[in-house]
């Protein structure tokens, strides 16, 4: 049992009514289909709700509503975050229903989905909120029964005073509890007493998803709402010159056609304001199909844009000038420039020992270069947003991972104070990092303001795929110095990309090597990039873990044993002091995957690859088994071992892990977005190959290390290591090391060359 101060969490106890001026609760009419129906909760709907705090309402009948603070994009926080509340509140899950909180940072604090941080950063605040509400219910019972509070226990929504035999449901005490002062300190449960955390609960929205209820922004409708689509420049580095709207405007059902600026010219951008196209054309009409037809009739002229600069603040806040270069870029040019930069010295990001001297005296040097292309996120729900902007307020409903950041942007763009802007959080049809960037909310708001009506803006798939905010293209060169006895003397990595380096300099294998050098470089570009499931890690893990596999072979060591040796060194006698990983936990997942995959036992026709990585505070090791059907690789099985501390919702956590593995295999095999003269060379799924059922592994097992360490996230960590598990297994199968993603393309070209 631990005692925590409620202070940090006290804003969640502000009542909505006490917040006049501090936050606005617009009467946002959500579709009837999305309200919980009484039958969904065992106790049914109460007559009255009593608000314990921002996260918790209790009805007089004992029914409980829990609010999920963070945006849901498939990572299942809408189930797992309320599970944490329910645990400390001590209620029966069957009496709980869950609602999505609107964006309301004054009450909820951090409402951000990204970096696999929801559970990690929500853990303490949610436990505290649940425990505090429980303490207030106990205090209400103590007052009603005139007994000391510390003699009262709770059990699944029931207050009990053993000595007097008194019992009451939470519902009976809720109205009094809601009026009591919030305690300064509360007790949290012992982890061993958890009843909900660690047990699998179904996705709270699964029923609505399976029956086609309106859930997503694209499903949203409101009286008088128009549909808007946009036309953006066909290429990066181009801008609008002029357009003729006459024909489009004359099409059936069309209300208006106009160009608009997404930001004002002197706007100081924040971190998530990444904008590819500063001026666009909007087509607004009655129905989606009519707008799609009118869009085809637009006659727009585009011109090459000059170089420009914007002011943009970093993740920490400080603004700096960012150059957007002119030019129509192509993948071929990118490759040549990256090769050129690879050969020049980079910025030294970490240097341990004397790596240069070690390379000088090396008997053998192993050097390999790895490349990966740009990737498009391709969320299944294309970019979309509802907005209703009037002279004095704005209401938005959209898929957004970072609502707080975009609320500042909207305030600046619309000239409205933040409390007059209500952002409601839609379930997202995928996000993967891309929905952290809220350009679509600004675009929808500007369009709504211009037409003076509520609008739902929908991108076509082509508009979505060609908009930008991609996973960058990267290259990494690894070098290892070996002595005459094949002992590893030094490791050197130089890696860069357009427009960033993928290196995390204090991450393994830094810390495990006496002589280590990490250099980074970057090339600027007008092709916009953004977070993509485990940014940077999703490439550097593939390069590093492929290289370690090849190095282990060169040193005649088992690839798992080799990694364990390095980790043992990092644990017992670490080099440097800033290493950002726990070597023991890292080794733990390798040991677990070794055991669970029966590593070392071979099966005819099955080729295995192993890979491991630490990022976003969690540790993962994966073993992938494939066989060749002719020349075609077929993934049979993937075994993953994960250490993310306490697992809140095990089956959902496994689902997340399976998905990340499938996603990674798909991108490793097929993912690629090339450019020619600034134009993305793929604009829909007939060109952009995504993994499909037949290419998915036949089986995926996700095993969790059992411990009681505070939980960390899962959305990203299983994704980066799978790329190298694929390439390492392909090497075992084909005898060829693959250095260029996507691997199927390289594999096919290798086969053609033979």
């Amino acid at each position, binding site marked *: 049992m631990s005692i925590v101060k409620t202070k940090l969490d006290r804003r969640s106890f502000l009542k909505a009514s006490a917040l006049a001026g501090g936050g606005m609760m617009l009467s946002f009419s959500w579709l009837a289909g999305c309200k919980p129906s009484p039958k969904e909760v065992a106790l049914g709907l109460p007559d009255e709700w009593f608000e314990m705090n921002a996260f918790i309402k209790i009805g007089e009948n004992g029914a409980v509503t829990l609010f999920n603070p963070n945006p849901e994009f498939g990572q299942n926080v809408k189930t797992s975050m309320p599970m944490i509340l329910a645990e400390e509140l001590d209620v029966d899950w069957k009496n709980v229903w869950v609602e999505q909180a609107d964006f309301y940072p004054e009450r909820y604090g951090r409402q951000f989905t990204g970096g696999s941080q929801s559970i990690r950063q929500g853990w303490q605040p949610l436990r505290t909120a649940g425990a505090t509400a429980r303490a207030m219910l106990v205090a209400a019972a103590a007052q009603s029964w005139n007994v000391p509070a510390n003699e009262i226990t709770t059990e699944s929504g029931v207050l009990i005073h053993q000595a007097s035999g008194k019992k009451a449901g939470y519902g009976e005490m809720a109205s009094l509890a809601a009026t009591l002062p919030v305690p300064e300190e509360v007790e949290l449960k012992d982890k061993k007493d958890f009843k909900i955390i660690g047990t699998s609960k*179904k996705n709270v929205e699964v029923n609505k998803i399976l029956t*086609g209820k309106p859930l997503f922004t694209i499903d949203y409708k409101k009286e008088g709402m128009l549909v808007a689509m946009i036309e953006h420049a066909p290429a990066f580095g181009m801008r609008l010159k002029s357009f003729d709207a006459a024909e489009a405007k004359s099409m059936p059902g069309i209300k208006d056609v106009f160009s608009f600026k997404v930001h004002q010219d002197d706007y100081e951008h924040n971190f998530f304001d990444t904008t590819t196209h500063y001026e666009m054309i909007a087509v607004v009409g009655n129905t989606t199909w009519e707008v799609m037809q009118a869009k085809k009739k637009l006659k727009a002229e585009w011109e090459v844009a000059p170089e420009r600069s914007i002011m943009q603040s970093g993740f920490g806040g400080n603004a700096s000038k960012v150059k957007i270069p002119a030019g129509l870029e192509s993948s071929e040019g990118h490759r040549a420039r990256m090769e050129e930069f690879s050969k020049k010295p980079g910025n030294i990001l970490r240097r341990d020992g004397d790596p240069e001297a070690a390379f000088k005296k090396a008997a053998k040097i192993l050097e390999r270069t790895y490349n990966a292309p740009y990737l498009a996120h391709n969320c299944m729900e294309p970019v979309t947003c509802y907005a209703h902007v009037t002279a004095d307020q704005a209401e938005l409903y959209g898929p957004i991972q970072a609502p707080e950041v975009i609320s500042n942007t909207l305030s600046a763009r619309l000239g409205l104070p933040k409390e007059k802007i209500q952002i409601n959080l839609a379930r997202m049809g995928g996000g993967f990092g891309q929905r952290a960037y809220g350009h679509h909310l600004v675009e929808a708001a500007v369009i709504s303001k211009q037409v003076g009506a509520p609008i739902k803006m*929908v991108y076509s798939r082509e508009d979505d795929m060609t908009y930008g905010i991609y996973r960058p293209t990267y290259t990494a060169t690894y070098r290892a110095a070996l002595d005459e006895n094949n002992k590893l003397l030094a490791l050197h990595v130089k890696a860069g990309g357009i427009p960033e380096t993928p290196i995390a300099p204090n991450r393994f294998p830094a810390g495990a090597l006496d002589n280590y050098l990490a250099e980074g470089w970057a090339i600027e570009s007008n092709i916009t990039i953004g977070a993509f499931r485990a940014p940077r890690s999703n490439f550097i893990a593939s390069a590093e873990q492929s290289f370690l596999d090849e190095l282990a072979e060169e040193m005649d060591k088992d690839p798992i044993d080799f990694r364990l040796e390095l980790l043992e060194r990092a644990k017992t006698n670490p080099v440097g002091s800033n290493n950002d990983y726990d070597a023991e936990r890292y080794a733990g997942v390798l040991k677990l995957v070794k055991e669970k995959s029966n590593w070392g036992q071979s099966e005819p026709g099955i080729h295995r690859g192993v890979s491991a990585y630490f990022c976003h505070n969690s540790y993962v090791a994966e073993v992938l088994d494939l066989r060749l059907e002719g020349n075609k690789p077929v993934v049979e099985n993937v075994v993953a071992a994960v250490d993310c501390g306490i697992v809140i919702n095990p089956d*959902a956590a496994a689902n997340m892990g399976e*998905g990340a*593995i499938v996603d990674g295999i798909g991108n490793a095999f097929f993912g690629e977005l090339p450019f020619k003269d600034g134009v993305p060379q793929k604009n829909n799924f007939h060109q952009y190959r995504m993994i499909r059922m037949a290419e*998915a*592994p036949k089986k995926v097992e996700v095993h969790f290390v059992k411990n009681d360490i505070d939980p960390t996230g899962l959305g990203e960590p299983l994704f980066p290591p799978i790329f190298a598990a694929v390439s390492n297994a392909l090497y075992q199968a084909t005898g060829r090391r693959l250095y260029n993603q996507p691997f199927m393309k390289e594999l096919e070209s290798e086969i053609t060359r033979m």
Partner: protein
Amino acid sequence: MATFNLNINGKTQIVDVDPNTPILWVLRDHLDLVGTKYGCGIAQCGSCTVIMDGNAVRSCSIPVSAAEGTKITTIEGLSEKGDHPVQKAWMEHDVPQCGYCQAGQIMSAVALLDNNPNPSDTDIDNAMNGNICRCGTYVRIKKAIKTAANS
């Protein structure tokens, strides 16, 4: 514009739209049946899958003019209470992540099982290969189809 008599989920629906309007947008914009999703508009992702006369079809690429005289079932018409064996199997395996593609996945699975009650892995791969799940829930989808086949 023209008037069309449609049979959707066993009900007659009359719409007055451009004959080229895909069934997808008639469902979503005119009939408020938004369970059928827009994903690509070119029959490549399967998010818009509905069942037309017993077959899984991509509603984004079939004009409403071709729908008259056919029977269309959408996700909303699969069952009254969400208890179609395929929906139940999806629930049992807690398949969805973001959930956006799942209506299309379910409709493809229903059409598969209606035509082939005991599909092999290859049958499943073939029938489901037109449906993309960006979250990568394929392993669970396959398990759910097998569960539904056995129920």
